[in-house]
Structure formats: structure tokens, C-alpha cells
């Protein structure tokens, strides 16, 4: 029994010690740093990619993906609260006594033990009232005491609210932490550990989520999200947690009638606003309200914030323009968050996002202003075996380097940057020119024709037919190679067939032939369209050759053209109930007042013992002995000496 109380005292001593508190502060700091360096609450796949399956498991166990809600982090906080509380309970009685009482029992000996004291010998009768008056003038509170021995003790003090400051500050810290804990997910954590509640990890409709993953209407504190498309309404929200979510039931229904983004003249967003209708059986009439960033709405203790926005299922009309000779173009209709299966091609289009505005920086350098390049669609194309590539396509041609391009990006994994296919617009601003050019390249008969023409033009008639034929053949072969695989096909063939010493020359000749032949091809094929060949077409052909070549790495047999859309937006709302907020604010107020009084009020105590023998002992003290204290001591003791002597 004895040893237990002894140990308890030891534990108490440890907890109350400042070194322990500082240790906790340091741990808190280190844990916080980890949380800022490792991005928190990301989807679990990201962590698996980052750390590998092996480490992922360990890191998950120690809660690295949500440090601030892990058990050990909460324990550190708890220890800090305990330590501070003990510290308050230990110090408060002395602080209060100091605040309320005048210490009037001191004798000469103890006064002389002060670091700042002074003994004076008075010559005439002491003018007590002048001393008191002086001290009052210096804002001291005073008390006189006549001792039995006939000595008089004057006790004076000022700035003693500083002592209350200590209590306010540290109580503030405790109240803030407790308020924070009230808003944390401690209750859920306990329920989860005891097996009452479970995180839902499947992507199923809210109504299908089972009772163990639902939080009741009366849940005291939560921070949940709700995404509402325009025209939709709901009475549940989702609490994201680890690799899944919980469903939070709400005591009312929220409907979104309209979501707006207002823009500055520069194109930057100026305001995100949602028009909401709140209906509740307790209400005789629905509440209509508009929320925006920095302007939330509170009803029944639950606050609704504008937090983000996304697509709400925009309808898309798309033309899939075939890039390969073997396939035909086709028109499809899609909707964001839905899929379209192309049975013939065994491909599935999954539409992920639509953006009406894209503010892009098209030119390098800060001087150039970003500009709006119009709508874009992000989508995935999944093949038969389940593999998918991600694409982004812009509706309109973008101005790049004084020319115009239809741009589409592709990437194989979300970690990569998009690689862009840039198809030049023709001189009428349309994609048709490129399609004409492409079909010319894919037309074998046409290639043969122009090969013959070129051979005829460049080689004299009277020369032998053999040479002409071989030239014609090589043009034909070169263009066919290009048509089948672009520049990389040609490079491969050069690598294989031509000795290193002649490579440079061969490349130049080949490129020249391709250029000339392409112009011929394009001109020939243009006859069947209404595009006219002009000066800009030369540049166009260069770009078209590059685009044609890149096409083979694009990863889709179709170029995606958005012909029309009907936008539907969705607003992202954050819905919170936070009973701790009041306590956190109250604690903060206490903290600020406390720190103010601790730092700006200077506690001073003065004793003046007037012995009946005529000797006077002055002692001066403070709980902060710094330069100001020395200054004050000099001033006050000097004045009093003057009065006395």
C-alpha cells in the first residue's frame, strides 16, 4: 500500500514537472511536422504506390495517414492537458493568495533576506501619509499594520492581476484542448474499437449502406460532406474516414436549386454560390438561402458551408473522328460519371469531368496573362482487358505559337503528366484540313499517283526508265512507311538499312522528299474538299506531319470532338456540427487575456518596516526580476529615501 502511494506521488511529480510538459510539447511538434510533410487523408492507393505494399501496412497501423486523429497523438494531447491541469491545481492556491492577500507577517530578518532591500536611518519624524500618498501616486495598493512591538509595517503591491493571468492562460489551454477533443471523433473511435460501428469501404448508394456505418441524427459532433447536383436534394451526408466513409443522417433535407461561379474580368473566379432550400417537418415553410465561401448558413446547430464544386452530370454530344484508315468516325452521346461502350471496338468511354472554363498559361513567362481556352472533358478509355488510359480534350482550338491547334492530352497513370497531341487547325479554323491530309496519307492509290508524278517531273524523259522507276519506288516506299508509323518508322528503317556515315544525309533527303510529297498529296486530296491551298498551308503541313506522327502514340483510335453540351453543375457542401467551438473560443479568450496580463502587468511588492528605534527597512520584490524591475526599484527606493531622510 505504501509503495503504491509513493509511486503515485512520483508519477504526479513527473506529470507536474515542466520538463515533462515541454517533452509533450516537443512530441506534439514532431508529430505535427510529420503530418505536414506526409500528405494526410489521401486515397489509400496513393500510399501504396508511394511506400509499396509492405511498408504501407505498417504505416497504416501506426496511423501515419491521419496523424492528428491517431490514438497516440490524442494520448500526447491528453497528457498535455493532464500536466497543465495539475500545474494549475498546484499553483493556483499560492497565486490566489498572492492576488488577494497582503503578506504582513514578515519580520526584519526575512526582509533583509530579499535581494533588493535597503536600511535607512531617519532623522526626523516620519511623514507616513506622504509615503502612502507617494505609493498611491505610483498606483500601489497599500496596507498599514501596527505591530505589537510598536513597529509599523507598510505593505504595498501593484500589478497583481498578473497572478490571475497565470490561471487564465493555462486554464485557457486546457479548455481549448478539451473543446477540440469534444469535436474530435473519440466517440466513434470507441464505438469502432468495441465493434458497434464500421467504416463502409464499398462505393454503394447511401440508402444501401448498413446500420453499422450510419451515424444517427443526434450525433453530437461531425464534419461531413454532401455533393448535390442542381435540382437534387438529400438528407444524408458523408463523413470521409480512412479508406472509406460513414453516412451521417441529417434532421432536415437540403436541395440545391442553382450553383454559380462568378468571375472577375480577368477570368479568375470571384465567388462560388449555392442557392439552397432547406425543408424540415418542424418548419411550416421551407427556408430559402444562398451560401458562398465565407458566408455559411446555420440551422438547428448544423452549419452548411460552400466548400467546393464539381460536375453534376453534364450531357455531352461527341463526334469520335477516326484516326485509323480501318475505322469509321461515329457520333455518341455521353454524360459525366457515366460510361459508353463501343461494342465494335471493344472500348468503353468513362466520362469523368467537364469544365466550362480553363484558365491556362499558354506562353512561358509571367508577363503573358493566362487566358480562358474554353470547355474541356476528362475521360478514360478502357479496353477489353480492363486497362485504361486517361484523356483530356478541349472543345476549341487553342492559340499556340501564333497558330491554332486542337489539343488532347493522354496519360497512362495519374502520376504522369499529360502528353499532348496537337492537331493543327486548317486555314478555316477547322479540324477538317487535317482529316483531309490524313486520309490522303492513308490512300495507297493516291501515294502511288503522286510518286509517279514526282518521278516524272524530276527525272528527264530521255533517261533510262530504270532510274525513274527506282525513284518512284523509293518515294512510294518512304511515304507508305510514314503513313504506317510516322517519323519513328522512318528512323527505324534508317537505323536498320543505312550505314552510320550516310545517316545524316539520308535523313535530310528523306525529310525533304516527305515534305514535297506531302504538299502534293494534300493538294491532290483538297480537290475533293472546299479548302483552298494557300501560304499558310505550308506551315500547316509541317504541323500536320508532326501530329500524324504523334497520333501513333496517342493511344486511342479516335480523336474526341465535343460538338455540344448541356452543363449541369454540382455543389460541394460541408456540413458540420461542432459543439466544441464555443469552448475553443472561450478558452482562446481566456488565453489571450491571460497572456496579456502576464506579460504586460508587472507585479511589484514593497515592504517598509518602520522600527520604533528609528530604523527603516525597505524590501522590494517581484516574480520577474528584469531591467524594468531594477529601474522601478531605484526610483521607488530613491523617492522614499528622500521622504524619510
Amino acid at each position: 500500500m505504501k509503495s503504491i502511494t509513493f509511486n503515485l506521488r512520483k508519477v504526479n511529480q513527473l506529470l507536474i514537472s515542466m520538463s515533462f510538459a515541454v517533452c509533450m510539447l516537443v512530441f506534439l511538434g514532431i508529430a505535427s511536422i510529420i503530418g505536414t510533410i506526409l500528405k494526410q487523408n489521401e486515397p489509400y492507393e496513393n500510399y501504396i504506390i508511394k511506400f509499396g505494399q509492405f511498408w504501407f501496412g505498417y504505416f497504416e497501423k501506426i496511423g501515419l495517414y491521419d496523424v492528428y486523429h491517431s490514438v497516440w497523438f490524442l494520448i500526447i494531447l491528453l497528457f498535455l492537458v493532464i500536466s497543465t491541469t495539475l500545474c494549475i491545481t498546484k499553483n493556483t492556491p499560492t497565486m490566489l493568495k498572492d492576488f488577494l492577500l497582503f503578506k504582513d507577517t514578515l519580520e526584519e530578518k526575512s526582509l533583509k533576506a530579499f535581494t533588493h532591500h535597503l536600511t535607512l536611518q531617519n532623522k526626523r519624524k516620519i511623514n507616513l501619509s506622504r509615503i502612502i500618498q507617494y505609493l498611491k501616486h505610483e498606483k500601489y495598493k497599500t496596507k498599514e499594520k501596527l505591530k505589537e512591538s510598536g513597529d509599523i509595517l507598510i505593505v504595498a503591491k501593484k500589478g497583481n492581476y498578473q497572478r490571475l493571468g497565470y490561471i487564465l492562460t493555462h486554464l485557457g489551454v486546457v479548455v481549448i484542448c478539451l473543446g477540440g477533443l469534444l469535436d474530435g471523433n473519440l466517440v466513434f473511435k470507441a464505438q469502432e474499437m468495441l465493434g458497434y460501428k464500421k467504416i463502409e469501404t464499398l462505393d454503394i448508394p447511401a440508402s444501401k449502406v448498413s446500420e453499422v456505418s450510419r451515424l444517427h441524427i443526434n450525433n453530437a459532433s461531425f464534419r461531413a460532406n454532401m455533393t448535390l447536383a442542381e435540382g437534387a436534394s438529400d438528407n444524408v451526408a458523408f463523413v470521409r474516414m480512412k479508406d472509406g466513409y460513414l453516412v451521417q443522417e441529417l434532421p432536415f433535407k437540403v436541395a440545391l436549386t442553382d450553383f454559380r461561379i462568378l468571375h472577375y474580368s480577368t477570368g479568375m473566379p470571384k465567388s462560388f454560390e449555392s442557392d439552397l432550400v432547406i425543408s424540415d417537418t418542424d418548419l411550416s415553410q421551407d427556408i430559402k438561402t444562398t451560401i458562398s465561401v465565407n458566408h455559411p448558413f446555420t440551422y438547428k446547430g448544423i452549419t452548411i458551408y460552400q466548400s467546393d464544386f464539381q460536375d453534376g452530370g453534364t450531357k455531352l454530344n461527341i463526334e469520335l473522328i477516326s484516326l485509323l484508315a480501318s475505322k469509321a468516325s461515329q457520333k455518341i452521346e455521353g454524360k459525366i460519371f457515366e460510361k459508353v461502350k463501343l461494342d465494335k471496338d471493344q472500348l468503353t468511354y468513362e466520362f469523368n469531368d467537364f469544365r466550362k472554363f480553363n484558365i491556362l498559361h499558354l506562353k512561358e513567362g509571367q508577363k503573358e496573362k493566362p487566358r480562358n481556352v474554353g470547355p474541356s472533358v476528362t475521360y478514360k478509355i478502357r479496353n477489353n482487358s480492363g486497362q485504361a488510359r486517361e484523356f483530356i480534350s478541349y472543345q476549341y482550338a487553342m492559340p499556340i505559337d501564333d497558330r491554332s491547334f486542337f489539343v488532347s492530352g493522354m496519360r497512362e497513370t495519374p502520376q504522369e503528366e499529360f502528353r499532348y497531341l496537337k492537331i493543327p487547325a486548317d486555314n478555316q479554323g477547322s479540324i477538317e484540313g487535317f482529316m483531309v491530309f490524313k486520309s490522303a496519307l492513308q490512300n495507297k492509290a493516291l501515294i502511288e499517283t503522286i510518286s509517279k508524278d514526282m518521278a516524272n517531273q524530276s527525272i528527264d524523259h530521255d533517261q533510262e526508265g530504270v532510274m525513274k522507276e527506282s525513284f518512284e519506288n523509293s518515294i512510294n516506299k518512304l511515304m507508305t512507311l510514314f503513313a504506317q508509323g510516322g517519323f519513328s518508322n522512318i528512323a527505324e528503317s534508317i537505323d536498320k538499312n543505312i550505314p552510320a556515315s550516310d545517316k545524316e544525309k539520308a535523313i535530310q533527303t528523306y525529310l525533304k522528299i516527305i515534305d514535297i510529297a506531302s504538299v502534293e498529296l494534300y493538294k491532290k486530296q483538297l480537290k475533293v474538299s472546299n479548302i483552298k491551298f494557300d501560304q499558310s498551308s505550308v506551315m500547316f503541313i509541317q504541323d500536320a506531319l508532326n501530329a500524324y506522327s504523334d497520333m501513333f502514340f496517342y493511344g486511342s483510335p479516335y480523336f474526341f470532338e465535343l460538338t455540344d453540351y448541356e452543363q449541369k453543375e454540382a455543389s460541394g457542401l460541408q456540413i458540420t456540427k461542432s459543439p466544441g467551438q464555443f469552448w475553443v473560443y472561450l478558452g482562446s479568450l481566456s488565453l489571450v487575456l491571460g497572456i496579456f496580463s502576464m506579460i504586460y502587468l508587472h507585479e511589484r511588492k514593497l515592504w517598509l518596516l518602520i522600527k520604533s528605534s528609528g530604523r527603516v527597512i525597505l524590501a522590494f520584490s517581484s516574480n520577474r526580476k528584469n531591467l524594468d524591475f531594477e529601474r522601478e526599484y531605484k526610483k521607488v527606493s530613491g523617492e522614499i529615501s528622500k521622504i524619510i531622510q
Partner: protein
Amino acid sequence: MLTKLFKSIKASFQAFNFIYLSLLLGSALYALKTFHIYMDIYEEIILLGSVGFFTWLGWNWNHFKKIIITVFVISFFAIQLYAGTLINNESVFLLKYLISSQSAVMWMNVFFVLALLLYWLGLLTRNNLLDDIASSFTSTAVIFGFIGLLVRWYESYLIGLDIGHIPISNLYEVFILFCLITSLLYLFYEERFSTKKLGAFVLIVINAAVGFILWYTFDRHADAVQPLVPALQSYWMKIHVPANFIGYGSFSLAAMVSSAYLLSSKKILTSYLPKLTILEDLIYKSIAIGFIFFTIATILGAIWAAEAWGGYWSWDPKETWALIVWLNYAAWLHYRIVKGLRGPILAWWALIGLVVTTFAFLGVNMFLSGLHSYGQL
């Protein structure tokens, strides 16, 4: 009793004070009358509150009063020169070369650089005259900086009524604010402790900020006025940001005085610098003042976050680092007060504190991503 009160009021109402107060109140009332349709009640309270704060500062510190009066008069003059058209800053000589926002900021930079050089010359040659000139250059730089900010505030409204906002919303602007607040704090202590020898150290950190402003202006062209993103459109910004920068400024001041302390305690420049006890006292005072303002700023940030993001604390990297900075100085204060620690350890600690603070201020924007996105490097 009444006569005594009257006398004391009369005594403090010297002509200068009167000009000062009427200037502050006059401008505030004018702003209220002309612009109240654009303000909400909180902004009106903040406006009047700042009159109170500036009056209090000016009452207690004469030099500040002079600075503010000069700033007001010149800024008002600059606004007259603009006459409501922005392009005047290209055509009116005085605006173009002296008091348009960007020119004023450049002059601020120039005077800060000169002040640093002169402070060092003054320190090493023990020449008090040079110190005095350096000190007045610092004041001049502060005046130019404030003019730069005030005129920028006005210019932003000339760009577009919906674009105009108080110029403390991006890195370029807050760096100017940092220079101003740190210098003001220093100038205050310079007078209070009657020593001009520390300018050589404090001006180093200010000039580092000047370097950043120059780089940001010439290399990044980030000095243009940008409209506010929705999250920043709040009256909270007007008090949260200045409070934060009084904190940052004080911590920087403490760190620079600490470096002087460390040198002096190693017998370097000892005879040139103030006594160690004075330096120590200054470090403590500076950290104490910084701590209280930083506490207020963090709390205001939390209240703002509750309104903008839906939670008073989201463990966003900026918030978290503010907490780390705060914990660091709380520990510093405890070791000094409760354990009675003194000497070089505390000075080193204050110096390292500046590294932590700088990371919270800049590093977070550079290396970590989060909800605070007012300035990306």
C-alpha cells in the same frame, strides 16, 4: 477633481496630438461617409478600431505620430495626382518616379539598403552621426513603404471596383508589411533603449526581405495587383494578417538581437554593442510581444477558418506550422520564466526560432500544399 482632469487632458492635447487625432478621425469619418455602402459592419468596426490603435500608438510614441502624419499627407497628395485614372502613374512625373505604389516601394528598398550600410559603418567607426543618419533613413524607408501600400490600395480600386482590396493578400504585399513592422518595432526599441547600435543587425533581416521583394518584382513580375480568391474575401484578413506580421516581425527582431548577443558574449564587437543584460532584456521583450500577437493572430485565423472552410482547425500545413512556432516560443518563455534560464542558450534558441518561423512563413508555401494558397513561389 474636474480641474485636475481638465488640466491633464489639456497637457496631453498639445497641438501636434491634436493634428494627429483629427487627421486619423477625419480620414476615418471621410472613409465611412464615402464608402460605407461598400463596407459591412465588421469593416466599419475594424476601421474605427484601427483609429483607436493608431491613436494609442501615437500617444505613446511621438516618432510614430510624425511618420503617420507624413505618410497620410503624401499619400493623400498622390491620390490627388492620380485624379481617378490609373495611367497617370506613367505620365505624372512625381507619381512615375516617386510616389506611385511601385516607385515608393522601390524607394523604400533603396533606403533600407543605405540604412544597413550606414548602420554598419556607424557601428564599426563608433560614429554616432552615421547612426543617426541610418536611423532617419530607416524612418524614411518606412514612410515610403507605407505610402507604397496605401497608394497600392487606392490603385487596386482604379483597376476595377470589384478588384480593389487591402494590400496584404499576397507574398509581395506581406513582405512589404514585414519590412515595415519589423522596422517600426526596431525604431521603437532604438528610442526606448537609446541605442542605435543594433540597427546593423536588425536591418540584415529586413534587407533579406528587400532582396526577396526585388527578386519577386524583377524575376517573377509578381508585383501586379491580383483580384482576391473567394476564400480571402473576408474582413478577418484585415486583422489576421497584420497581427501575424507583428508576431513574425518581433520574432525576427529577437533573433537578430540574439545574434548580436552571441557575438558579444564571444567577445566579438563587445565594446561596440550595448551591455549583455540590455540585449537579453530586449530579446525577452521582443519575444513576449511577438508571442501575444502571434497568439491572437492564430486564434483569429482559427475563427476565420471556421467561417471559410467549415472548421476552426483542419491541420492544414500552414496552421500546423503556426502551432509549431507558437509551441516553440511558449517553451522558450517557460524556460526563461519558470526555470530562470538565461544566457547564450536562450539566444541560440531565439535564433533557431527564426528558422522555424521562416519555414512557417515561406517554407510551407514552397514545399507543402494546403488550403492556404495566397502565395505560391
